[in-house]
């Protein structure tokens, strides 16, 4: 039994995966927790403190090489060590690397895995994921190990960590030069509010006619002390808001106390992102819109009439 490997682009994602890994080991899965990182990735100290017994450290990449170039180095080591499970945070690069390594190991990869359970009696790893945009939940078990999973950020709680704990560091060899070269990297500007951490999320959908009109939604978010988010068409097709504000299957999954969808139809892929919301509200002029079946409270009406009234009533009745 050769343990669990984790790989994440960001430290907070790595901490989540380490926590998930620790729970599996505690349930009797066996082996050690091992983190793979690189200069510029999560720091070995942080990984050790969060429970990694060993850190596999990759050498720096040559200039203009994409992160996925590390694939062959990780694959070769995984072939030798044969870990039971490799967990990747499901960022674009994480998903890409996981798929390459899974193919190289001739192993299964559970994409978008949102629950992991080690059944110690039968010795099976039970993995859960969504199908049909979120309309169905599938539990699967691998026939063989190693097996891989990509885990959406925010799925598991982060562990607390212990700064006195230290991982042993082992260096992995440099990968061969990749035929893919990076010509340019245009970093994204930092936006203000963190939707994933917000207690109240106001989500704008395609019911808004013009980008200026989003001011209504932003106003509501500000009044409630919440964050503004959107559906995929708004970020992807119209480009009115940045993609990291898109909630759903291919965006972020949020767990606020209150979600208010405005001009959102409630297609299953979007609803998948708000399953963890405590209270779901909807404002939509179409009483047949599927979001009403997925909402606790719904206002049937034109958003252009409802929002000004809602804002006014909120301001008037604001708790002293």
């Amino acid at each position: 039994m050769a343990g669990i490997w984790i790989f994440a682009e960001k430290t907070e994602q790595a901490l989540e995966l380490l926590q998930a890994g620790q729970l599996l080991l505690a349930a009797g899965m066996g082996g050690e927790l091992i983190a793979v990182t690189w200069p510029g990735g999560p720091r070995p100290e942080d990984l050790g403190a969060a429970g990694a017994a060993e850190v596999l450290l990759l050498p720096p990449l040559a200039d203009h090489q994409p992160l996925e170039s590390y694939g062959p180095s990780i694959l070769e080591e995984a072939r030798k060590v044969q870990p039971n499970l490799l967990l990747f945070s499901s960022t674009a690069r994480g998903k890409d690397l996981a798929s390459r390594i899974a193919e190289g190991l001739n192993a299964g990869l559970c994409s978008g895995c949102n629950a992991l359970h080690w059944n110690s009696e039968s010795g099976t790893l039970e993995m859960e994921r969504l199908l049909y945009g979120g309309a169905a939940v599938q539990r699967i078990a691998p026939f063989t190990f190693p097996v891989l999973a990509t885990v959406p950020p925010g799925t598991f709680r982060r562990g607390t960590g212990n700064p006195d704990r230290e991982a042993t560091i082992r260096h992995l060899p440099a990968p061969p030069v990749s035929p893919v070269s990076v010509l340019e990297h245009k970093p994204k500007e930092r936006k203000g509010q963190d939707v994933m951490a917000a207690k109240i999320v106001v989500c704008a959908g395609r019911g808004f006619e013009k980008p200026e009109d989003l001011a209504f939604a932003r106003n509501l978010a500000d009044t409630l002390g919440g964050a503004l988010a959107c559906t995929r068409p708004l970020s992807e097709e119209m480009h009115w808001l940045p993609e990291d504000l898109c909630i759903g299957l291919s965006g972020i999954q949020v767990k606020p106390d209150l979600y208010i969808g405005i001009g959102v139809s409630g297609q299953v892929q979007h609803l998948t992102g708000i399953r963890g919301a405590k209270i779901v509200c909807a404002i939509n002029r179409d009483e047949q819109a599927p979001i009403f079946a997925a909402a606790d409270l719904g206002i049937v009406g034109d958003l252009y009439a409802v929002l000004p009234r809602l804002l006014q009533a909120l301001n008037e009745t604001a708790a002293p």
Partner: protein
Amino acid sequence: MPVLVACFKWVVDEAYIRRTSAGELDLSSVSYKISDYDRNALEEAARMKEASGGSVLAVTVGVPESTKGVKDALSRGADQAFFIADPSFGMLGASETAAILAEVIRTRIGNFDLVLCGEGSSDLYNQQVGIRLAERLGIPCLSFVQKLELEEGRVVAERRLEDGIERVSAPLPAVVTVLPDINIPRIPGVKDTLSASRKPVVTIGKDDLAVAPDAHFRTISLAASRLDRQCERFGADETDIRRFIGALRQKGVLR
């Protein structure tokens, strides 16, 4: 003249999936479609051909009933289709699909420049097939692409990543997986549909394949997901809006 291969999947339209009172998945009234982002892959291939010549070959693995999808793909600008069909190909895993696609692309097409896939299918959304396919073929893969160009034996693409946009270049042949905002897929007209029925389709059966990939997973359970919500309705007049705010305060989610 580039040879462009566009892979697509014929899938259940998830909008018609229902949940029975027992919590089971009800697929009795579903219709089918070419998976959303595969339509983007087909469209991008068709546009590349329209801009610079060459040919578009559409490839799919599926159950024999997917013939409608093959015709749909041909009406979206593909010149020829390869239809790999078997009744057992309904719920293939990503690695199995990639292995079958790789064999057919290697043995039946051979000389190709670019393979285009959607980033993930709308039914399983594994987001693995294109990347695994590239590994199988031993060629570069550029995933999550929102913009694409061919240049002198290379493909140049913009990948959308969490921390920004990465412009990358790779030698051909290569695989790309495309995001939905790369283009807006056409809606085929009557003429497109008519001409589609005259285009050649190569049908390949399970017995014609050398690979017989095994599944990596077994399904323990499959159930409709639950949404337990209260579904209380309010009107849009001022009285109702005040009632709505009152209800939110009562639930303790508003200050």
